[in-house]
């Protein structure tokens, strides 16, 4: 998929643990892990809002469009 989730990099950059973010968003760690791996069909705006809020970032920092070669 041309949309790449860069959540792992942002989490490492902010030194935030997945568990803490998952708790803040209100989803399970398993679902957050799937999201980080890009193994989900989509992300709700509510989830994106919480992530941006917690990590003090913009949606563009987390989601990147990489055109298929």
């Amino acid at each position, binding site marked *: 998929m041309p949309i790449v989730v860069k959540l792992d990099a942002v989490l490492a950059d902010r030194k935030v643990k997945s568990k803490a973010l998952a708790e803040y968003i209100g*989803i399970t760690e398993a*679902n*957050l892990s*799937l999201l980080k791996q890009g193994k*989900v*069909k*989509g*992300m*709700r705006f509510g*989830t994106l809002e919480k992530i941006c809020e917690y990590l003090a970032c913009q949606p563009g920092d987390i989601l990147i469009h990489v055109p298929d070669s």
Partner: protein
Amino acid sequence: MSTPADASVVQSPVLSRALAAACVAVALLLPLGVALALWLMPVEALLQRLGLPGMGVSGDALQPWQRHAGWLLGMVPASCAACGLWHARRCFLHFARGDYFAEAAIGSLRGFSVGMLAAAVAGIVVPSLASVVLSWELGPGRRQLAVAVSSNDLLLLLFAAVVWQIAVAMRRAAALAQENAAFV
């Protein structure tokens, strides 16, 4: 697939299990009761129950093949209903486990509707066939084809169609729930 649901709309597992047990009891007792009634009931009373009175057929004049054929025909609606109830039992057991949108539960609900639909159609067709079978030995010119449709048959037909539609809607809901689960 189980989906979380509001506790106020979730049926009690105890009630689901009780309904499953009731389905088993009726699915077993209904064909047995009908078989016994068909065997013991006088032909005149049977014709009355089938909505075919005044056919001029007496029990003494019936040939053994007519009795057996009549008995087999009479068993068809009850057997179809029993099959449907067996599917309903499986459906209720899935509900008791909280698997409201499981593929198997929806399949069982559809099976129940098919069984009831077959029972309703048989309830309309069987009396007609029974009239032919029971009057067969009366000879040419006296054989009869009676058609009887009761409001109960039509209501059962409508009920089965409604349950079928609910099963179709549940399948669609299950697909939507599955798609929704893929979003985080």
